[in-house]
């Protein structure tokens, strides 16, 4: 073989190897992640106004925006039921199966006939103007992506959380004000083994992840003492972006954020004296997380 042919062969082989290496090392396209963030401080009239939900929404928008999400925020009169439905529907065209959609809402919630609702700006006229789990799930179902996340900082928001094939050992009515019960240790839940196996056998995975501030029979609170003035749960959720990476992989998953927020609410709200009357924490509450096998990255800090 001529020397030039050898060089050509070497060059071709080197080029092929280089392109294979380049193809294998190329970073995959970052998944498209969309976050719709709502906060209603100023409801129509003055009697139902809150103090911090619009601030919650602004701060959540900031932390989600710096964690890989494309964000859109609406506060107060812009956060109507129709706007929320339209915003979710409008995302549909730009989504692939690997996309993620997150809806965050801070404001009032209510419960009627064992159904929980969150209350958009125009939702004070009755449950038909509020948003229930079945309604928002139907809106999410129109989206072609697999990862759908709902985060609620409202009273009674645990009613949106389906424990799936798991048993949630955090009671839905924890605080004494709610006629609550104490947290059940996982070991005692293991005693209910046959029920757990039944749930496993009947399991159907939902692609909707729900993280709630409170149980289905609990109130959630806001306070000037948390963050710069936030919903208590939201202040810890925002803190989770920087502090909840338990396995140090620079990815904070929904369950890591839940764990951090839950510990924060328990330690810095439920256990504090300002929350107690005659030694009883009258305004205790616990966050809840839906119980499917899947988890999803909430804050990408890479």
């Amino acid at each position, binding site marked *: 073989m001529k020397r030039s042919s050898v060089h050509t062969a070497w060059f071709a082989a080197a080029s092929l190897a280089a392109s294979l290496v380049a193809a294998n090392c190329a970073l995959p396209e970052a998944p498209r992640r969309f976050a719709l963030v709502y906060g209603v401080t100023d409801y129509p009239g003055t009697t139902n106004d809150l103090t911090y939900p619009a601030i919650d929404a602004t701060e959540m928008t900031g932390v989600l925006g710096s964690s890989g999400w494309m964000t859109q925020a609406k506060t107060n009169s812009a956060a109507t039921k129709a706007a929320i439905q339209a915003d979710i529907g409008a995302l549909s065209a730009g989504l692939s199966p*690997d996309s993620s959609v997150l809806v965050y809402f801070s404001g009032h919630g209510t419960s009627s006939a064992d159904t929980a609702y969150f209350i958009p700006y125009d939702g004070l006229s009755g449950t038909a103007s509020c948003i229930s789990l079945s309604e928002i799930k139907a809106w999410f179902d129109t989206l072609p992506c*697999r*990862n759908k996340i709902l985060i609620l900082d409202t009273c009674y928001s645990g009613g949106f959380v389906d424990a799936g094939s*798991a048993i949630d050992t955090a009671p839905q009515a924890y605080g004494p004000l709610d006629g609550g019960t104490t947290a059940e240790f996982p070991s005692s839940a293991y005693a209910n*083994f046959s029920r757990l196996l039944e749930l496993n056998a009947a399991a159907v995975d939902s692609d909707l992840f729900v993280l709630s501030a409170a149980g289905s029979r609990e109130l959630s609170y806001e306070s000037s003492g948390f963050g710069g003035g936030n919903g208590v749960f939201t202040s810890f959720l925002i803190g989770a972006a920087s502090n909840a990476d338990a396995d140090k992989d620079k990815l904070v998953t929904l369950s890591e954020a839940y764990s951090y927020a839950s510990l924060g609410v328990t330690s810095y709200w439920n256990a504090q004296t300002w929350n107690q009357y005659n030694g009883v924490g009258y305004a205790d509450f616990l966050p809840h997380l839906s119980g499917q096998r899947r988890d999803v990255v909430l804050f990408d800090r890479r």
Partner: protein
Amino acid sequence: MQIRNIVAIGFLCLAFVAAGQAQPRFSSLPEGFRFDAVVSGSLPVSFEAGRDALPHWELSTRIGAEWAAKRWIPLRFEAGGFRVSPSRPDASLSLFKGFDGYRFALLTGPRFFPDASRRMEIAALGGAALSAARYTNTTLVIAYPSLLVEGRFLIAFPNSPYHGILGVPVELMFRGPVLTASAGVELAFGMSFGGMGNRR
């Protein structure tokens, strides 16, 4: 939890050594009761229809008790704790939650002796387990059944009631619509109480 369990297994092995001083000494693997303490590491992979298979890692500690008959292990009971890490995320940044909990298993299978002195034993065990676990970082508790297959190599320590085990455990966990298959390596330290033959 696993660090505590590994320390507990360490103390259990020391207890075996102490208890073994009063036991008959063997030059081979005898028939009869025997106990062991196991530490194992595995690589589980979770599968779900229409999604990528995603790997985890698992660390588990167990204690086992079994009856060894002439060429058969009619019954082995295992109880232990395990921790399965969250899986690697897929392209959409979705992953399987980690889970940690407790497992109870029953196994059975044949045993063979590759050498005439019966100092070494190869066993092939199969069985089933029930596990109860909590998704890591959550308050959610689950339970699931699993199938087990295990290849084991045992070697008796001379003139003692002790033996060592090197095993390859394989588990198929039926977690509702998700299947998790795991294979790993286990190391165990055990003690035979004997009962029939081979005593010196």
